[in-house]
């Protein structure tokens, strides 16, 4: 068994797929994994691949032309997942896709396609939930700042919706775990940037400074509930505790 490994970036993953495909070792005899690799397996040869823009482009072009653009979007989303086997799931799907073409997207009962779709659903759903539950706080100079701690690396999927929503504001969204930020200056394009530990601490401090609108929102949130219909189970189903970390309306008492 040959295991192809690569860093957890989109470019490296696509290159890894390229190398695995062209190794001609037989699809049954290879596996793809993202680093870090935890336990090494016996009788396996580990081959590390580095990201290569040229090969990455070739794979993207192949997916778009031989399968479809929709398939490429799905691959991009799946690559953002935190599933340890994601790269192998993507690879197995692409094998089928290069054989069947765009028809593969309706072969929902094939195990490889099922796994791929499930991964895609998870990432899309998480992106959507953060679209709902991300909260910005406003600093004195009018810059809006939000913190998120998603399971998957959804920031690149999330920020375009805010770009459309608030085109003429200054805002930034920070992924605390990955120390990654999407910054949108009012008059310019959004860009992704990684942050140092010190920068993150500063941003965190700023975030928890509350203003009058935070209080008004919390007041509104409490008043809008009908006490005769109280239903915490239903509330938890729609808004799991996991997502309440930075939702200001819950901070004083998570049970309300």
């Amino acid at each position, binding site marked *: 068994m040959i295991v192809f490994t690569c860093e957890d970036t989109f470019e490296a993953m696509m290159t890894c797929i390229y190398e695995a495909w062209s190794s001609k070792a037989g699809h049954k005899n290879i596996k793809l994994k993202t680093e870090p690799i935890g336990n090494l397996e016996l009788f396996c040869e580990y081959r590390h691949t580095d990201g290569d823009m040229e090969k990455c482009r070739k794979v993207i072009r192949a997916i778009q032309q031989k399968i479809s653009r929709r398939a490429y979007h799905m691959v991009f989303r799946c690559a953002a997942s935190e599933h340890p086997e994601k790269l192998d799931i993507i690879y197995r799907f692409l094998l089928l896709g290069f054989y069947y073409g765009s*028809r593969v997207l*309706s*072969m*929902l*009962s*094939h*195990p490889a396609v*099922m796994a791929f779709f499930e991964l895609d*659903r998870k990432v899309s759903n998480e992106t959507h939930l953060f*679209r*709902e*539950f*991300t*909260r*910005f*706080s*406003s600093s004195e100079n009018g810059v*809006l700042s*939000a913190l998120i701690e998603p399971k998957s690396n959804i920031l690149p999927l999330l920020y375009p919706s*805010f*770009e*459309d*929503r*608030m*085109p*003429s*504001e200054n805002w930034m969204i920070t992924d605390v775990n990955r120390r990654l930020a999407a910054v949108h200056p009012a008059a310019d394009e959004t860009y992704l940037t990684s942050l140092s530990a010190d920068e993150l601490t500063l941003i965190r401090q700023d975030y928890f400074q509350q203003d*009058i*609108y*935070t*209080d*008004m*929102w919390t*007041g*509104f*949130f*409490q*008043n*809008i*509930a*009908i*006490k*005769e*219909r*109280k*239903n*915490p*189970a*239903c*509330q938890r*189903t*729609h*808004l799991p505790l996991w997502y309440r970390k930075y*939702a200001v*309306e819950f901070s004083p008492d998570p049970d*309300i």
Partner: protein
Amino acid sequence: MEIIKSTLSLTEKLNILADAAKYDVACTSSGSDRRGKKGFLGNSCAAGICHSFSADGRCISLLKILFSNDCIYDCKYCQSRCSNETPRATFLPEEICSLVMEFYKRNYIEGLFLSSAVCKNPVYTMEQICHTVYLLRTRFRFNGYIHVKAIPHAPAELIERTGYYADRMSINLELPTSEGLRALAPAKTRESILSPMRQIQDRISEHRMLTGKDPRLERSSANRYLSGTIFDTAPSRKLLSETPAKTSAFLPDSVRADRSFVPAGQSTQMIIGATEETDFQILSVTQALYQQFDLKRVFFSAYIPLNDEPGLPPPGTAVPLLREHRLYQADWLLRYYGFRADELLSTERPNFNPHIDPKCEWALRHLEQFPIEVHTADYASLLRVPGIGNKSALRIVKSRKSGSLTFESLKKMGVVLKRAQYFITCKGKTLYPIRLEENYLTRQLTAEQEGYTRRIGQSAHENWRQLSLFDDMGLK
């Protein structure tokens, strides 16, 4: 009164007027698809976005507030009626605008839901509402979602003007029948509710036709695979030819040209359980509203006894949450599943079974149509299987083209078999050997739904408690 009002802070006003608005049901931000614009704040997403969920489990999508709760009417079911002693407050239009802008920037809300009690008179109230949304769209450059209530007895001109700034308008039907309305809300008449509704409908279809769309609103795209839904059997109204005078608008063409009129359609809501209507009556009214007024949604609101009034359930009566839930389920069956009201209920069986959902109930009465084979059944009949919804039915239809299905692969595709297993076969076999017999299936299905119905109907059984040998049996 004036002195008290002027001393209220914005926070206090917001608390009072949010509290007064909480009985309005609709908090949806769906139906409008609008991209963001440079220099403006906001966009709108067709599916709608919820931003939080309050302690009662209802979604918070919009800043749901009343403009004022200082009402001149005395509707018997209402908290804000003039004979109740509650704190009164009225916003200024600019205050609402700044709240919306600041909340929207922080991603708390998707837009504004503005309703109002009738303050001074209907004309004044509607004027203030109209002015608020006008400011929001022009001076504050807000491009997000706006849902506005039309006030009964408000002049047509104001309602129309408001419609050009709103995404959705609604006017509350309040009670399913006109007798109920006469008894509980003497200041409102059926006519004063239906005529603005008709006016908004006419304007919407006129505007849609001018922009090259079908005069009727879009419905679920999967409805095109169904035949005989309530929407295609709806009697069509010839709009322009019949009523040429009404289409002349109050506003100059320049204002109307670059704005769309209520793109997300209109909705309404009615109170369930305050009067004696049956589920069949309510559902028939709902269907008629969809067909004749082309409403986008009809909302139900379980009656919460707030006032001690003769002829109304006394305070402390359990809120009919389960009944409301069943009606919503049936409403979905009308809009997405191709059912009609008279298929689900009849004058002989006028109410839904609380123990079992409407679709299961229908299937149990039509066992002759089951089991159906997933490989050959058409989309419409798959949709009628309890437990199979739009997504599952589409997935089945799509994937069976490229290979045969098993119960295992159905599960993996995301089709939930809990209820569906009793009604479908895969290659001629059911999942388990089962008898297709009404009593047996009813027992199976009610057992499965029991926990669920108990949770929803919880407040109906508040007198249930743990048995205690010491207190109840007198053991010491």
